């Protein structure tokens, strides 16, 4: 076993987990321009759907991802249309409202599945290369986050993504040319919610599933999105992977309790030097 190589590979996987959850959050912050504190609840919803299907004997992640995306998209559109759009000009109301939704979800999950942690079998690792273990769910989150972020970047640079990009950059112009801004906003909210639920499904076997499991990923992904500057998909991915590596290396070299401290210290330093985020140093913007 090569401990340090293992720590680096695991750091890459951890970072891709942050990126996977941050992808949808970045879209909401960039396009809808609200801080969505219910994003972690959609992540938990995806994990619980994977668990519920596994108890029925359905262990195919593709089925779980599909079902979770459909349910989360419907919830997201409902939340976006009925709550976010009407109050989005009041940032505090949005924050309190989405936090309230997250707590409501936690209570509902507790009633449906109980407060006890539940778990899905993770299976064996994917491969062992020269003593370095390729963790199955780490590799899956790396592939999934790359695919999702690439898909978002391609969509935003395509003809179909133009309205979203325009709304993100110049909302008044988009309205003046007759775009249905409200609709695009709640559809974006629905899509981002589906992405969070897909992340929940994919990471469910690697974790233990609890009603409050979405809280920690919400904070970490919010950190990644704000520090990356929201406007550049590549910046989100790079920062997420960088933080994953930092977190794992500092936990290995010093102590696991130092991982969070070092991660937050670097973020504070980054925001102090670049208040507009990491993407300010990168060429171009996606939206």
């Amino acid at each position: 076993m090569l401990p340090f190589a293992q720590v680096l590979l695991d750091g890459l996987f951890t970072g891709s987990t942050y990126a996977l959850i941050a992808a949808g959050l970045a879209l909401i912050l960039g396009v809808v321009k609200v801080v969505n504190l219910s994003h972690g609840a959609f992540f938990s919803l995806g994990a619980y759907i994977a668990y519920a299907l596994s108890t029925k004997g359905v262990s195919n992640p593709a089925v779980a991802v599909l079902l979770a995306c459909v349910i989360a998209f419907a919830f997201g559109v409902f939340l976006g249309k009925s709550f976010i759009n009407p109050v989005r000009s009041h940032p505090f109301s949005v924050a309190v409202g989405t936090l309230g939704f997250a707590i409501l979800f936690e209570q509902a999950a507790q009633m449906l599945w109980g407060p006890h942690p539940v778990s899905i079998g993770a299976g064996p690792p994917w491969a062992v290369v020269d003593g370095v273990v390729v963790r199955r769910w780490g590799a899956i989150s790396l592939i999934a986050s790359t695919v999702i972020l690439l898909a978002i970047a391609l969509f935003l640079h395509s003809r179909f993504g133009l309205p979203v990009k325009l709304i993100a950059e110049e909302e008044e112009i988009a309205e003046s040319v007759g775009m249905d801004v409200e609709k695009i906003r709640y559809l974006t909210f629905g899509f981002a919610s589906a992405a969070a639920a897909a992340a929940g499904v994919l990471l469910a076997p690697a974790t233990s599933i609890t009603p409050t499991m979405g809280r920690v990923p919400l904070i970490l992904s919010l950190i990644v999105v704000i520090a990356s500057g929201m406007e550049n998909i590549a910046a989100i991915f790079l920062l997420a992977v960088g933080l994953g590596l930092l977190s794992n290396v500092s936990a290995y070299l010093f102590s696991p309790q130092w991982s969070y401290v070092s991660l937050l210290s670097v973020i504070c330093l980054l925001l102090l030097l670049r208040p507009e985020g990491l993407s300010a140093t990168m060429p171009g913007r996606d939206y």
Partner: protein
Amino acid sequence: MRRLVAACLPGIVFALAALLILLPEGWPQAGTGDPLRIGVLAPLSGPFASGGSAFLQAVTLAAEQANSEGGVLGRRVELLVADTQGRVDIARSEAMRLVSREKAFALVGAYLSEETVGVIEVASAGKAVVIVPVAATAEITDHVRREYDRYRYVFRIGYSIPQWAEMMADFLGRQGYTRYAFVGAGIRWNRELSRELGKALARRQVALVYEAFYSSRNPAFESVAVAVAAAAPEVLVLGDPGGNAAEFVKRVREGGATFPILSVGGTLGDARIAATLPLSAPLYVQAAAWKGASPAATRYAEAFERRYGYAPVGYSDTLPYDAAMILFQAIRAAGRTDSDAVVKTLEAGAFPGIAGTYRFDSSHQAEWGTRELRGNVIRWEPGGARIVYPGSKKR
């Protein structure tokens, strides 16, 4: 017709009254009159809701059983439930409400050490008996020892940290291990447990080769799993009773490590969780009591499973059950609901519970680690759990 009914009415009433008096022969019922009000403080929402809800389920089961046997001193047991949310301030204010406004005679709880320290201050001021089931910090019994007059109403059913460490060390020593690692959640009692376990194992010539405490906000399990494997312990002690424990075991086994893991109990005692974990190497769980350890433990486990649809984990449910049952026994033995009389009874008596027979020392700590009360260690196997301590041989 009306005259006929009027004539028969006293007879019907008498017959019904006689029936009600005679029937309880086969149907024990709780007494009438003022109920015996017992406050239950547990985190029923928030991150500790899992342990808190099992806590409440077990105390509810105990109250139902007491009521089905005629109540306590002929009075029906009524539980007054308070959700502490895992917060010290709420635990304190709820304890105050239960004691001063709801007139609870005694409290069972709280769950976390920090909450419980707040609760015993409030309850002792109100002279309410407090039975502490799971909170393990030394601060609780230290209060009783230092300020007996004020805190004499506080009794701990659950094991103290040194007792917990001693029981685990006894098991590990009997297994013949010489090198161990300790990994756990970075919370106060866990650090105390690691320190006490270190002392207990040092006396048995078992050396600590790796120690780490992770933050629940960013546990970095992968790195800990790599570091602990690199230290090559013969056994890993996992100090985390929460959901993170399952995640950590997955990481360790995924990394290929084959050393045995001994959990302090909690989530890993849940058969539903254990069924999803790799059992390629031994997974041990410390518990207060386990089905099969004694007839009482088996009866309790079966009653719990029948009532709630899942098997007890042997810790966050079992100890609260014993806490309630011992409180009821003490009130019955005292013969009246007088706090000082119940305290005297608890101090002098021996009380059978499902984990064994409880006696209290001068600091009102249950004497764990004796032949009468020593807990269990189980090993998960594909077919279920097997008790390996007490009575286990060398590995």
